[in-house]
Each structure stands twice: as C-alpha cells, then as structure tokens.
C-alpha cells in the first residue's frame, strides 16, 4: 500500500487580484521506504508540494492521503499531532534550536511532541546520534558544530520518532560538495536501516542521482515521473 497518494491535487494562492496556481492536477503515489525526489526550476511548486505532504499547507482541491489518512481535513491541532507522529522534517537551513544542545535537539520531538519516558527517550536519542555519527557531539550547541554536522543532527531529529516519512526541502543546498554527498549517503543508510521514506525537493544533481523515483515539476504540473535505476536500493 502506498505511503502517500495524491489525486487531482491543486493549490491556488490568491494575493489581491492575482491568482497563482502553484500546483495543478498533480497525481502521484509514493511507496514505503522509497527515496523520492521532486525536481524542477524555482517556482515549479516543489516546496509547495512538500508542504502539502507534510500537513503544513492544505491543498485547495484534490485528495491527499499520507499513511492511510486523508490529511486534507485535519485542523491545525490534528495536523500538528499527525506531523509529530508520522513525519520528520529536514530543512535547508538545518533549523536546529540554538538554545538546545545536539542531544536536546534530537530529544525535543520525543519530549515535547511524543512525551516519551525519560530512560527510553535518552537511549533512543543516543542510538540515533550514534547512527548519524554524532554520538560524541551531544553536549555541543548548534553554534559549535559545522553545517554538515548540523544536518546530521537534523536527520537524527527527523528520524528519532520513528517517522514513516521524512520530508527534506533542499537538504544539501547549504552544504559543500563533500558534505552534501556524505549527508545523502547518510540518509540513504538511514532509509535502509529504518525503512523510512525520504522525499526531497531539490536542484542538487547528487540528490537526484541517488533518488529512486524522480518527479519533475514545471509550472505546478507534474511533467514526468521516472525511476532512476542508479538510485535503487540493492
């Protein structure tokens, strides 16, 4: 059963007299544990689509199911609860909380969103930091680590809740070439290890190269969906 199913998906923004059709009649599905990339030029609707999948922005029309739930009808609180339970986010600017240590940043969703018991929570955080190679940096604050390390922490934070789906909006845009490659490799390893589905919006050819499914968007329409064999899990 697909993890994400979008049918006749539309998103329209109205700013004064101007109407912008950001997403138009888009249909796709994403299987569990896949590595999917939405590509396209700026303004093609990649981020809008990711925001809709992530329950951050409701579609104007159409149906969107994530993990078997129709997410178009969730109110603000239900959407927050759904995100907390099912979806992890990795942002272009890492978006770590500056006043929390690396350990506390990863712990945050377990404590503030899912309210795990302390012993179990700490063990889980430690495991995730080890998985992303940041176990020895737990006491540091985000300002004390590099961009690549921050993105590793962000990946750990996205995965710590056992999220079924991780949405990554331009996750390598602020990283140098070598670090970006390491982050993509890490994400793929995480996918293999935890069976998490990764969905990217990206311009980065290295991410595209590693994706198993590539959806190309243009002017809010899905132009092309293709499987890239090079990116498939072995």
């Amino acid at each position: 059963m697909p993890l994400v199913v979008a049918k006749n998906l539309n998103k329209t923004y109205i700013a004064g007299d101007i109407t912008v059709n950001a997403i138009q009649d888009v249909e796709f599905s994403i299987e569990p544990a896949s590595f999917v990339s939405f590509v396209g030029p700026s303004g093609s609707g990649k981020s809008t689509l990711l925001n809709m999948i992530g329950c951050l922005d409701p579609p104007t029309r159409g149906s969107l199911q994530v993990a078997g739930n129709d997410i178009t009808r969730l109110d603000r609180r239900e959407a927050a609860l759904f995100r907390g339970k099912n979806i992890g986010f990795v942002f272009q600017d890492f978006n770590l909380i500056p006043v929390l240590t690396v350990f506390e940043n990863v712990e945050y969703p377990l404590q503030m969103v899912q309210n795990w018991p302390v012993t179990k929570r700490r063990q889980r955080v430690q495991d995730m930091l080890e998985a992303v190679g940041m176990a020895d940096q737990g006491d540091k604050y985000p300002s004390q680590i590099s961009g690549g390390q921050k993105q590793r922490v962000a990946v750990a934070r996205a995965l710590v809740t056992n999220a079924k789906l991780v949405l990554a909006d331009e996750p390598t845009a602020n990283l140098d070439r070598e670090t970006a490659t390491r982050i993509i490799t890490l994400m793929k390893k995480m996918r293999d290890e935890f069976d998490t589905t990764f969905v990217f919006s990206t311009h980065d050819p290295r991410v595209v190269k590693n994706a198993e499914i590539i959806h190309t968007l243009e002017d809010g329409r899905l132009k092309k969906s293709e499987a890239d064999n090079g990116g498939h899990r072995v």
Partner: protein
Amino acid sequence: MEGIVFNIFKLAARNLKRYKRRTFLTSMLITLGVVAVLLFVSISGSFKVMMISQITDSMLGHLQIHRKGYLASIDSLPLNRNLSAKQVAKIKQVLAEEDAVDAYALRIKLGAMFSNFAETTNIRLNAVFPEQELNTVPLLSTRIVQGQSAGLINKGEVLIPELIAKGMKVKVGDAIVLVANNKDGSVNGLSLKVRGILEGISGPGGRDGVIHLEDAKTLLRITDVEISEVAIRLKNMDQLSQTYEALKAKLSSIKNQQGQPVFEVHTWEKLSPFYNIAKMIDLMTFFIRIMLVAIVLVSIMNVMIMAVYERINEIGTIAAIGTLPSRILGIFVVEGFLLGILGTAIGTVISLIAIAAMNAFQISFDFGRQTGLRLAPTISAGEVAVVVLTVIGIAVVASLQPAYKAAKMDPIVALRHV
C-alpha cells in the same frame, strides 16, 4: 507531562540567557518598579500607622460619642451641649454590651484663661479621670516631655502644652491659675500646680492641656455629672467599622422628646484631618502600583514581542515538527513569567535590605510641629506577596498576546521568514 513542563521552563530560561543584555535591562526595570513600590508602601505605610496610632492612642481614641450637635460647635467647646448623667449612663450601658470595646474615658472639654500671675492666655483643656484616660489613650503619658508621667494627673495638677509652657515661661512645679466661665456665664478660678509639659501633636486636641475631671467640675461649678465626650478604645482596630455601625445603630435608636437622636458617634477618621492625608497616601500608593503594573506590562510585552519576532523561524520549526500550539504558547508565557520572577526576586531582596538599612540607621523626620519622628519602615509579608503576585501576574498577562501570536503562527509563513 512533567517532562514537557520542565522542557518548557528549560527552553524559556535558556532563551532569557541567550539575550542576556535584554533580559538584564528588562528585569532591572521591573526591579526598579518593585523597589519603588515596596519602599513607598513600607515608608508611607509606617508613617501612616505611626501617625494614626499617635492620634488614636494619645488623643482621640478610636471612636467618640457626643451629644448630637456637639461636634458641629466643638470650636467653642459648648458646655450647654454636654451629656447629662442619664445620657452618660445610657452610653455606659451600650458600651458594656459591646465586646469589641476595650476601654472608654469620660471627658469634659473646656476653654479657660491660663495665668502665671504675670501674663494670661487662652488654653483648651481636657478634663479626665486618669485611669480611664490611660486605658483609652495609653500613649498620652509618652507625650509628657517634662514632669512625672506615671499616673497621668492628680487633683490640683495640670499638664500644659509645650507652646504655652514656652510662651508663658512656665516650668514644672509652677503654680498657675485657670479661670473659666461656667454654663450659666459666671466666672470661677482655680489654682493648680504644673505637673508636666505635654508634647504637641498635629490634629485637633493635639495642643490641649489636661486636668483632673473633678477639678473641672469644681472650676465649672458642676454638681452633677456632665460629660462633653466619651472616647472609646477598641480591642482591635480592625473592628472599627463594625463597632461604629453597631454603636451608631444602638445609639441612634435613642431619641429625645422631639423624636430626634440624642447621640452622635464618630470614628477617629471623621474627627482627624490626618485621615485625609492617610487617604492621599493610599491614593498615591495606588498610583505607584498602577505605574508598576504599567512598567511591567509595557516592558514584558515589548520584550516578548521582540522575542517572538526574532524567533519566527524557530517557531516555524517547532510547529512543523509537531509541537502543539498550546505548548508554543507555554514556552513564551513561561519566558515572561520567569522575567517577572527574576525582576521581582531581585527587587524584593533589594527592598528588604533597604528597609532593614533604614531601620538600622534610625532615620528621623519632621511633620508639622513635630520634630525628630523616627522613620521605622516595615512591610508585611502580605504586602510583599501582593506586589510579587501582581508583578508575576502582569508579566504572564503581558506575555499572553505575543505568545498567542506565536502559537497561532502559520508554520509555512514562519519557516519562510528570514
């Protein structure tokens, strides 16, 4: 849930630490407000209590009963408006039934000519029974600055106010003569010995002399009982209003043949102009409190609006990863709450130290003709609690609007914010 609450406090505290300078300035502003209020409340409150205590415990008593109309013409000390023996008996009966009454004193108030055999001047006198008087106004003896204070007064003696003693060059032990008109208009004189000099205090009766009530009867040729006023002391000043109402109800039901009330009863508040000063002090205290509320409200709201504005992206992040709006609200409200606590704690400590220092240094001041009054500021735990809770409450209220804004923020808009 405890983990969530702990984490909210941790986040709030760390964010305050993150903007150290702003936190310092805001908490100092709150501190300043708290110090101003606590010091003002303690100093003005102590001054008020001291003055009220001096007025009620050395002069007026807590309540007074007169014959109807006496107070309106008190400036002329009218002897024809004195209470009769029957009326005094009735008052005694009413007072005996009132549990709140601790003691009462019968007085004759009179005006006389005071002569030292060389010069003559006017004097206002309270004629009293010493034991009753000391029970009712126990601080009266402390106003005796020269002469013997124990026992207050004996027959054949007079306590004279400082001003007359100085003006007439009269000393303790000197013989003087009082000459007074009685109710019928005839004049009588009485030789007395100066027993002591009374310190003058502000307010009506503050510069009156004192003689024994039996001497007043002799001077005024009163054969029966005639009393100008009955001063009453209560066991507890807090019972003033209730006792006043109770006495008023009982006494106003006693009517004369014309159906008019025979008695009038007044609290010290009605009798002393200091009550208006006390009310002014209360009003000023109220306005100082309002200023404190305004300071806390504006400073916390300003800081929290800034905090929300500066952390829009962070708000978007925590909202995106599933933090409920109520918890986002909590993070910012707790931040304001902690700022309030910080400012209040520092302000309270500084204020208590300052109050202790003022007491240690024994600062004195003058009020009217009274000099060298000792400033002894005190503040009750209740007053401190009111100020502390007000500031913290206002800090929370001031944080609510920015916190609500943060909680309601659209995660998409917040994440796009640069």
